[in-house]
């Protein structure tokens, strides 16, 4: 019995270690050198996920040009850096996803009194617009200028939903959550799938406090 036992152990070790050694060979270089913070890598993935659970009106959902990508706009001082880098080879609903950066209001022409962003036409074409923390002062303006154009506005700042924003990312106990203002989504003519609503920490269904 003892001899048989030893043989069995030997067989198992062989089975176990053979593939281990084989598989080690090609994976010695772990890639590193990302600049964006872990926080924004996670937030980037949230944005990517949101797109999967929101339906845009026909002109944005099924454009005439089928090659037209889904656009994530980033407005303001960009905290994502290269967090979206690996999105290049991914698609959602059969369409590519691209990101577009837009200058902060503070950097754009400030003489303009009505504070309309110079790239407003391009911003309106975005599917999702992430409003960076640098734009806090202008949130109301931004939302007003895109609300009729089915743009999913997302941010990570307090008061964003009250200001008319649709999704706000929040942090609690070292984890991220998100809250949704359904009324704002309806106004933007966006359909939120119920899975998204179910996972939201808070769903607000009323008009912004004027």
């Amino acid at each position, binding site marked *: 019995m003892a001899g048989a036992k030893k043989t*069995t152990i030997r067989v198992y070790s062989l089975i176990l270690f053979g593939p281990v050694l084989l598989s080690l060979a090609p994976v010695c270089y772990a890639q590193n050198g990302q600049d964006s913070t872990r926080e924004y890598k996670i937030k980037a993935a949230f944005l990517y996920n949101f797109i999967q659970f929101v339906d845009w009106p026909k002109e944005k959902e099924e454009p005439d040009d089928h090659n037209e990508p889904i656009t994530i706009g980033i407005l303001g001082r960009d905290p994502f850096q290269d*967090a979206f880098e690996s999105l290049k080879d991914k698609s959602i609903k059969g369409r590519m996803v691209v990101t577009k950066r837009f200058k902060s209001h503070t950097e754009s022409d400030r003489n303009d009194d009505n504070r309309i962003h110079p790239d407003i036409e391009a911003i309106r074409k975005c599917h999702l617009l992430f409003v960076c923390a640098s734009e806090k002062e202008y949130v109301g303006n931004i939302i007003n200028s895109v609300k009729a154009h089915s743009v999913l506005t997302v941010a990570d700042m307090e008061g964003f939903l009250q200001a008319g924003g649709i999704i706000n990312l929040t942090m609690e106990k070292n984890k991220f959550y998100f809250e949704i203002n359904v009324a704002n989504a309806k106004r933007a003519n966006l359909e939120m799938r119920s899975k998204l609503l179910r996972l939201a920490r808070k769903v607000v269904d009323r008009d912004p406090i004027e």
Partner: protein
Amino acid sequence: MIGTRRETSVFILALVIAFAFDAELFALQQGADESADFFEMSLEELMNVEIAVASKTKEKLFETPAAVYVLTAEDIRRSGATNIPDALRAVPGVEVVRINSYTYSVTIRGFMEDYANKLLVMIDGRSIYTPVYSGIWWNIHDLMLEHIERIEVVRGPGGTLWGANAVNGVINIITKKTSDTQGTLITAGGGTEERGIGAAHYGGKLGENTHYRIYSKYSNHDDGPAIDGTEGADEWDIFRTGMRIDWDRTEKDKLSLQGNIFKTQFGDIFPIFSLTPPYVQNIADKTSIKGTDILSCWEHTFSETSDMALQIYYDQTERIGALFGEKRDTFDIDFQHRFGLGNRHELIWGLGYCLSTDNFSNSTAFSMTPSSRNLNLYSGFVQDQISLIRDKLKLTLGVKLEHNEYTGLEYQPSARIAWTPNTRNTVWAAVSRAVRTPSRYERDVRNEWAVYPGTPPTYMVAFGSNDVDSEELLSFELGYRFKPSSRFLLDVAAYANTYHNLRSSEGGIPQFQPTPVPHMFLPVTFDNKFDAEAYGAEVSATWKVTYNWKLSGSYNLQKTFAHKVRSSTDFLTEDIYEGKSPRNQFYFRSCFDLPGNKELDMSLKYVDSLPGAGVRSYMRFDVRFAWHINENTELNLVAQNLLDNKHAEYTSWICQNTEAERAFFANLIWRH
């Protein structure tokens, strides 16, 4: 030993297949960086990602030098299971049998018995195995499954950290913090086997940092068909209610308090023996158990590398039944402290004390002498994790000392080593010793086992013995994890276990007794005259094929060779140790998110025959379909055991056996 060759080939084949898959995925994923990993995650997963990288004292699962599997809340929800043992069927290497509608036996790495005794099971750190037979009465722990955050399953000895009884594994059920169960939840459902399950909770806030929840659950279960074709008497119900409060006083001090009450009643059939014909009569009866438990815990963080926890609980159960009654009070206090020492050492040490007091009401068929006992248990452990090469090679040495009422001082040392050359591979190995201390039954019982008809009839009675010693295990383990991307994980573990001093049932010399009617009296006394070797391996893999489709599968092989020592007169136990656990198990599962907020989940499990229990191999095929009607409402339709009308999963000696039937179940969950 020749017999293992076939199994070994199957095992190799499974591995080769798994690796072939790997190679392909690897090619696809090569060069993927960490940000790509997050893009592979679902929203649920993202919401579980800790923003700050976990402090280094918290060991990452991937690098753990033990065979660990975590069943998440999402896994449980999508399994369609209505109780914990059914949910555990999905865990690689776990053997689950349903004996009747309320009796389950759960084992890991063999040694399935009517009352399996080599596992330690805890709910939030409160041990739920009963000292009566060192096993678990699963039915009384009918938690709201929605409250379970995760179930950690350790295959293999966990004695160094957890203590005695963690011989073949540890199951740790962790419930959600109250901040994660805010709001109202109401669920109601019913089906062919589960007549009705209803539960509700409400979670609220008492202050900025204080959350609470209260809940109640009632369930009522149908009886099953007995193996001999008659109607079973195993219908039962249970009511449970409780509360929990979490107070995060500061970032560094967290307190929690929880309490539960339950009451259950179940149908039971047990034999009444007589020395005159018909010798044995099966009597149906109702047994009821009620219990209360209260647990408080204080966690304090000193620094990033140092924290402590103090936990106190009190648990009372009272069983009233015709065979025996039992009242048990358990008081337990545990302290644990973790700190870093220099750059390379991370120490954990702890002290514990447990007092378990019981009081039995005896019957002629079943009695304990003495009828009341105080069991004092003192324990202490220390474990040092030494970082030999930073982040790459870790050695963990530990020992637990325990003093128990029956066998005195027991020691359980272990040495574990894990090598993580990069983020994709971990190889680990371990040697450990674990013990199972004797149960009250093995020491103190007098239990009528059988009357064999004849002239004169033979009257067999089992006796506990003060000589019963601890069972010992020396275990060698080897494991490997491979994660080519965040979408794929392969986990392999193999073990060779040597058991010593296993329980035996020694047949005594039959004596002729003239009264009350002439009969032969055959005493059976418990002893430790069995040894065994067990070998096996578990392979499991999960693969997120797309963001809405996840596949997982596992295979495990276990083989036990038991042999009694020369002086033994045991004629029962060899079949139990060798033939009551499945040698092969396959499990395959697919979880698919359908468009329109629907989910379709399927699982298939093959369980090998149990020659020692006279059970043929069977396949379980379960399907769950769920529809999230809106953000608040979820409808679940579950079909279990679709492949046959009914099948037996086990035959027990002690309790009634009923078969697992094809079952349908529907429920509605409403959250607000």
